[in-house]
């Protein structure tokens, strides 16, 4: 909140902090410091009083100490030279007799985000790990992770890691959880903390002593433990049983996920668990916290994908109360749409019918679309409700109903008659592009059953000049031509006018081209037009494609209790991809080089990509960030799988090449500078099956060819060929641009 005169404030505070009279008066001194903090928290830049604040840290007043520590942690990165002065005081405080002071000082020291502080904090942290006060040990354990981050994540201190593993047996539960968190960060290059059998069982036995946050996190860590035998598996599940009834929804969800993952080979156990959490989940859906309701509803939808009948008897739980926020209402409508069955369809439709006239147009439209969704199964009832809605003559309702009709007749041809009957009159209440398109499409495709279809279309043709949406004009052209085929006498004249307008007067090129195209098509002869335009009018089989049959629980179990259900899978994949790409080499991507790519692009998505015939079966995953060390180790341990020479002229522009490779998800590990001789580059890529491709590019001086050597972690010729073709394309393209 920067405001005028902020410089004056800083100046005044600086003067006050230096004033010996104020310094002598403990209370006034602290008040000045509080004002500094207050301004800092409001986003004002207070870094220029750093020196004065450091001086203020030498005090016995613990509140003042806390305040100064807070200040130092905020501004230390800006004033690293001065911050080192403060470290002396902090070091001293780390051996204070009061454990509270020791803990505070240690925590603040570890939070000073600046280079060079490592050497000072190492000893206090090691002392802290053995402190008799658990408060200090908690701080010290997390301090290890902070120290590791300061070291630039490079080497892992084996002794420290061992000490942390042994502290997993600490009697203080929070120390135990902090150890897991800390190890996870320190060992992220190696895939995080290892949960072996003794550790897993130790954690399971400590579970009941942890607070809810600790429980939720331990449940998450336990996901990576694989029980050795069926017996062990069921022992674990028995131990975890009571957490399905925890008062914390976070713990319930964590426990559910662990159950689902551990019991992945026992579908009946999975179903049983989902039955058991039904209660807690429904409770969360009507929790006081609207945000919890929302997240819980998203998970209910996920479960419904596999067990469509799961919540059917509780359908009333998902009726909307008018005071609920929008995002909850929209989720509830979706849930209602999914849990309909023969018994509740009547009540659900009645309820949804009520929402269609809601004051909020968005919500009303969502309800109409939901009825449209239910119409695929319960066509007659829904079409009747939708038809009644048209009678209200409300613009925002009519347009969505017509769109719903369009989608519906394609899937359920049995309702064509009813829809055609309802359509006349709608044109008066539709103004938006989507609605007009839908109406015109329906009139074109099913016009032979609607007596006044040509006359409705004629109105559109009359007003085509003032029509603002090109998409509507395109739709109109197609529809009119279609209708002309079945009712030539009524349409011929206006088709002529429309084509004339589109070809002679229309400014939108796409519309004009479409007009010309139809004109030429008509010149070829009416049979040809029929052959091209008269495609099938419905295709019920498409419905199967759109709502795939019940998905197995295992297809989403790993996404349970993550953000995926909140976003929907497809969106989540794009978001994550975007985050990964923009982060480049920063925190996120090297957090877990191998695991992250596997997680973000979920199993299912990969399959989908492979299935689509027009995309290649071969896919490189983004964000495969190898460290140079790992690359070198792997490179030296492998044989060359393929060698090839490509033509190349002149020098290489490393930036261009790197960028081009990035596009196809090939990462550059190292590259010679432009112009160096010989020029070399090392590249790595990983495909969706986890196979790594390591590549060396070599450009010898006075040799107009690029030598490529590829090594592969798994010998798969087919994949290798695909990879080579990707690489060749890139290098070929870059080569072409240059020459």
């Amino acid at each position, binding site marked *: 909140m920067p405001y005028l005169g902020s410089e004056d404030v800083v100046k005044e505070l600086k003067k006050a902090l230096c004033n010996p009279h104020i310094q002598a008066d403990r209370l006034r001194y602290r008040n000045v410091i509080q004002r500094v903090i207050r301004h800092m928290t409001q986003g004002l830049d207070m870094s220029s009083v750093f020196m004065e604040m450091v001086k203020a840290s030498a005090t016995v007043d613990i509140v003042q100490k806390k305040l100064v520590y807070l200040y130092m942690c905020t501004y230390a990165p800006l004033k690293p030279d001065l911050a080192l002065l403060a470290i002396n005081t902090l070091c001293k405080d780390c051996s204070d007799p009061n454990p*509270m002071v020791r803990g505070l000082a240690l925590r603040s020291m570890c939070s000073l985000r600046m280079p060079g502080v490592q050497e000072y904090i190492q000893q206090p942290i090691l002392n802290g790990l053995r402190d008799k006060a658990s408060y200090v040990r908690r701080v010290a354990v997390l301090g290890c992770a902070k120290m590791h981050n300061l070291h630039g994540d490079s080497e892992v201190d084996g002794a420290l890691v061992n000490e942390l593993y042994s502290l997993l047996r600490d009697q203080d539960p929070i120390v135990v959880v902090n150890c897991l968190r800390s190890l996870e960060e320190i060992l992220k290059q190696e895939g995080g903390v290892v949960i072996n059998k003794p550790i897993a069982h130790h954690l399971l036995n400590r579970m009941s002593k942890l*607070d809810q946050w600790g429980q939720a996190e331990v449940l998450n860590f336990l996901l990576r433990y694989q029980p050795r035998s069926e017996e062990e598996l069921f022992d674990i599940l028995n131990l975890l049983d009571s957490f399905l009834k925890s008062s914390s929804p976070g713990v319930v969800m964590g426990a559910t996920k662990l159950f689902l993952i551990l019991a992945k080979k026992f579908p009946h156990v999975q179903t049983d668990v989902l039955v058991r959490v039904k209660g807690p989940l429904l409770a969360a859906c009507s929790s006081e916290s609207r945000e919890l309701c929302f997240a819980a509803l998203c998970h209910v939808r996920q479960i419904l994908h596999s067990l469509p009948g799961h919540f059917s008897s509780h359908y009333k739980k998902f009726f909307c109360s008018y005071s609920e926020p929008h995002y909850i209402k929209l989720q509830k409508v979706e849930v209602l749409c999914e849990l309909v069955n023969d018994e509740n369809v009547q009540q659900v439709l009645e309820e949804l019918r009520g929402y269609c006239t809601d004051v909020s147009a968005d919500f009303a439209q969502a309800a109409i679309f939901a009825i449209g969704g239910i119409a695929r199964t319960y066509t007659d009832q829904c079409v009747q409700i939708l038809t009644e809605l048209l009678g209200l003559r409300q613009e925002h309702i009519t347009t969505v109903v017509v769109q719903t009709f369009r989608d519906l007749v394609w899937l359920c041809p049995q309702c064509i008659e009813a829809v055609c009957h309802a359509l006349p009159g709608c044109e008066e209440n539709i103004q938006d592009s989507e609605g007009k398109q839908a109406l015109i499409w329906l009139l074109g495709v099913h016009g032979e059953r609607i007596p006044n279809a040509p006359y409705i279309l004629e109105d559109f043709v009359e007003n085509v000049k003032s029509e603002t949406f090109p998409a509507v004009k395109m739709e109109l052209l197609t529809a009119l031509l279609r209708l002309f085929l079945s009712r030539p006498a009524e349409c011929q004249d206006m088709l002529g006018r429309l084509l004339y307008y589109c070809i002679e007067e229309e400014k939108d090129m796409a519309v004009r081209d479409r007009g010309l195209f139809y004109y030429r098509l008509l010149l070829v002869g009416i049979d040809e037009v029929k052959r091209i335009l008269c495609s099938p009018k419905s295709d019920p089989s498409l419905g199967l494609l759109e709502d795939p049959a019940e998905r197995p629980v295992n297809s989403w179990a790993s996404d349970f209790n993550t953000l995926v259900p909140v976003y929907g899978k497809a969106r989540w994949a794009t978001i994550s991809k975007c985050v990964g790409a*923009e982060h480049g080499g920063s925190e996120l991507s090297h957090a877990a080089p191998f695991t992250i790519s596997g997680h973000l692009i979920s199993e299912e998505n990969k399959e989908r990509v492979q299935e689509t015939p027009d995309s290649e079966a071969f896919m490189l995953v983004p964000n495969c960030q190898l460290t140079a060390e790992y690359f070198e180790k792997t490179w030296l341990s492998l044989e060359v799988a393929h060698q090839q020479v490509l033509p190349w002229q002149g020098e290489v522009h490393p930036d261009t090449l790197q960028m081009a490779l990035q596009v196809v998800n090939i990462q550059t590990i190292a590259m010679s500078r432009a112009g160096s001789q010989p020029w070399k580059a090392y590249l790595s890529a990983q495909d969706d099956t986890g196979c790594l491709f390591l590549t060396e590019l070599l450009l010898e001086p006075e040799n107009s060819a690029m030598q490529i050597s590829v090594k592969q972690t798994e010998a798969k010729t087919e994949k290798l060929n695909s990879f080579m073709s990707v690489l060749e394309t890139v290098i070929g393209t870059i080569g072409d641009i240059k020459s």
Partner: protein
Amino acid sequence: MVVMKMIHSLFLINCSGDIFLEKHWKSVVSQSVCDYFFEAQEKAADVENVPPVISTPHHYLISIYRDKLFFVSVIQTEVPPLFVIEFLHRVADTFQDYFGECSEAAIKDNVVIVYELLEEMLDNGFPLATESNILKELIKPPTILRSVVNSITGSSNVGDTLPTGQLSNIPWRRAGVKYTNNEAYFDVVEEIDAIIDKSGSTVFAEIQGVIDACIKLSGMPDLSLSFMNPRLLDDVSFHPCIRFKRWESERVLSFIPPDGNFRLISYRVSSQNLVAIPVYVKHSISFKENSSCGRFDITIGPKQNMGKTIEGITVTVHMPKVVLNMNLTPTQGSYTFDPVTKVLTWDVGKITPQKLPSLKGLVNLQSGAPKPEENPSLNIQFKIQQLAISGLKVNRLDMYGEKYKPFKGVKYVTKAGKFQVRT
């Protein structure tokens, strides 16, 4: 599996969009990240409708809305969403607990304590101390008296010794608790969520109940609480202190309680025939076609109230947009109509069965506008003392492990939750 790095930063934002507090546990994230939040807020029109999870190119924003404030957390990696939402609510609860209210003014007045709390509640982005009684030993809450004393003596509001609870083997209870009066109070609070349709029949009804406890007992008491009719309870969630196996086998709540206030269990009663609806509303709301007025008439009466008085009744109605003003006469209580938000509030008070409260009169509509499609829903608040509407009754409370004789008390109250009558 991805590293859980929980909460990176927290921003507190008021309804007019000012960021009035920020806290970063790892590196500093620029305030500009909140622009994505403001964008969503703008799109949502009404502040209540801002979605709780928003993605930005580099972060995810998970937010909660409490008491007209947004708690916006910045997350960098995959997290369990319910966990974060729960934690944010815990932060808000703690402020409420410390300052009596969770408002911008209270937070700004106590900004230093707020920072101390946030510092203790999270370290490196991970939740640490969140139990109210343990936090209160680390950081003393402000009281008027204490702040006066502090300002005179300059003494601190920080515990000088380490909280004893940190050393106890039971994480939710501190060791060495001592009271001169040993007391254990239980509040059984039930809220009725219901949707009643036009004709007065129940579309949906459910009871959400909680038992809140206030335990001031010395030493390490081991309590057993039993009910007359435990099978009433459908879905029960338990405080971690409760021995789950004992409940499963005997339907008795057996536990070593935390010290002070805490929520013992929460439960639901949802089989519809068990949910009594204590009030009914007679209503007639009509808008005439092509006329600038309408009629409004509602009467409230008791129904299935088990002979107890229904009090604290308030009726809130969001009138349609075309309503300009309302001229009403209440037989009791007072009403207000806000012509801007179109909200009618009628503060009824309690029902006396001899003379049922009613509110009737004329509604002025915008002339020329089409009559509203739908009649508004009525939102009703009420309270019934000394009654758990589900019929739940505590049978007895026994204490083991300590010698003294504690004072025990149970209170019942029933309230309206989301209680909605369609007209």
